[in-house]
């Protein structure tokens, strides 16, 4: 019975971090697919999201829905501005764009450090209480994260599949020039995609703020994981990001339960390196021309 409970707990924990990784990775892969830019500042937008959650929810006691909306709008607009002002001129070269995002990341992280200090701040749960399923016990807050993340991912998926803008984005990701010929304003798609991408990161940050804590450095690990997930799933592939995120969450959770956190971390990296070498385009990525 003990082993069984342990495994169920590990499964739920894996789902929680897995959905969070998926949220991070979707945005990351969206920007890469459309703009061919590896965004090293992605984790900083997660961090901004968790700070927004901390101030609006924990300090000003606003409803959590407002918190999420504030995170999406604020970070989305800032992201679009960052793209327009800083990344647009450097898009021509993959490496140059990537280096620029490194610089942006340094600036955002250290600005947060200057204003908020380095010490982590705890945040109260959005929902309290426990659920019992057979022998296993979960907290509602975990279940809440899973459901909320699934809803956000679903909404994003619908947007990409059904809406005109979403379809335009996919078209640009597939072939920029062909999309241009079809009358898609590529120059508007780029800031929009970047804004949506970092807004998703901010949602992940806001939802995970009660699970982890809030500090200027919370974005580093999720960004690392998003990296791993997109390599696993294939750079530029959105289904790959979801699958890779869940897979990585599970590997991490079960690995940590059965083998210890350190071994699990090393295993993850080794696995990803192996995948990159055998199948550089990832599990669900398409081959590049």
């Amino acid at each position: 019975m003990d082993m069984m409970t342990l495994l169920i707990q590990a499964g739920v924990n894996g789902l929680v971090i897995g959905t969070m990784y998926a949220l991070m990775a979707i945005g990351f892969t969206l920007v890469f697919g459309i703009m061919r830019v590896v965004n090293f500042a992605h984790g900083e937008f997660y961090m901004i999201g968790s700070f927004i959650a901390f101030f609006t929810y924990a300090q000003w006691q606003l409803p959590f829905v407002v918190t999420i909306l504030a995170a999406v709008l604020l970070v989305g607009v800032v992201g679009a501005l960052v793209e327009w002002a800083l990344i647009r001129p450097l898009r021509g070269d993959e490496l140059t764009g990537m280096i620029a995002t490194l610089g942006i990341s340094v600036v955002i992280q250290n600005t947060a450090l200057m204003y908020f200090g380095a010490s982590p701040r705890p945040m109260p749960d959005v929902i309290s209480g426990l659920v019992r399923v057979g022998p296993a016990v979960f907290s509602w807050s975990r279940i809440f994260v899973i459901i909320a993340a699934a809803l956000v991912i679903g909404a994003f998926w619908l947007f990409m599949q059904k809406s005109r803008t979403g379809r335009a984005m996919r078209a640009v990701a597939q072939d920029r020039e062909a999309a241009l010929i079809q009358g898609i304003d590529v120059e508007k798609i780029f800031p929009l995609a970047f804004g949506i991408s970092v807004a998703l990161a901010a949602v992940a940050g806001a939802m995970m703020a009660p699970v982890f804590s809030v500090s200027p450095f919370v974005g580093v690990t999720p960004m690392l994981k998003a990296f791993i997930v997109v390599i696993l799933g294939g750079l530029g592939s959105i289904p790959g990001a979801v699958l890779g995120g869940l897979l990585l969450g599970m590997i991490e959770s079960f690995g940590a339960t059965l083998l210890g956190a350190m071994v699990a971390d090393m295993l993850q990296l080794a696995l990803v390196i192996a995948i990159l070498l055998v199948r550089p385009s990832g599990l669900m990525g398409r081959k590049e021309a």
Partner: protein
Amino acid sequence: MNTTDTTVAPPAPKSRASASGLWTRLALVAAACVAAGFTPGLLPNLFYVHIANLTLISGIFALSLWIIYSVGQLSLCHAAFAGLGAYCSALLSLRLGVPPALSLVIAGLFTATMAALLGAVILRLRGVYFVLVTFLFGQMFTLLALNWQDVTNGANGLISIAPIKLLGISFGPRSMFFYLAFAMFMATLLFTWALSRSTFGRAFNSIEQNIDLAESCGIDTARFQVIAFAIGSGIAGVGGALIAHYIRYISPDTFTFHNSVAYITMLVVGGRSIFWGAVVGAAFLTPLPEFLRDFEGLQHIIYGAIMVLVLRTLPGGLISIPSTLRRLTGGGK
């Protein structure tokens, strides 16, 4: 990739301009050597000597990263190789009592070998994929250094590492170490220079410009990339070992992802098209945080902002300022 039109650009080896440029540069190097002889005595206090030492070591890192960049690959685990060399040399001298001057060499060879083995596997990835896999290796190194307690002493790091002694002279004191660091830096600089003018350098350059064309011209691109990666990382290993024996303390924090980023920043800010850019970048960026110390907390922000600003306004880096000015004033070609 933009190639700034500098006088030592490989395509015109016999032109008069190139030859006179070469002599100017050689004269500059000689002048630098003479100036260096007096530097430690002239600097107002040991703190400045320390900064000069760090700058020289940064120069070694930036130059070695440039060698890898010159085959068109950007390594995000340069600090990990520096760390590998540092741990190797420190452990050899701490545990086995190997004289540091010798362990430094062994560390360089060991790092180069590791890089060659790794490079043989990962260098077939290109562009962003290579960057990502080197990034992951950097993370693995940090994890390993943190968690392999028995060997690396974990987060506590290794302390009281012996200073380098050569022919009875100890290079432990800051002002003595300066001469060693300067010699090592000059060796790296001259080596990189010679390399970039050799057939190797031409091959590297052609791979960077157009790898497919280079391959079809009969250049063994895979082999040259591994060579460049091994040489660059090996030099980084020696640089890391120098730090270990100079600061005499290393920990996983000494060689993190952020250090790798700092080296890349030096390349970008200095100028990537030619190795002098790496030297300019290291010389400009290493002392910068120290001079920004008055703006406590702001220094890293300024650091990042400078990086973005240079990319935005001077894509060729600081080294392209003269040619940009010439173009702006209309006096150039």
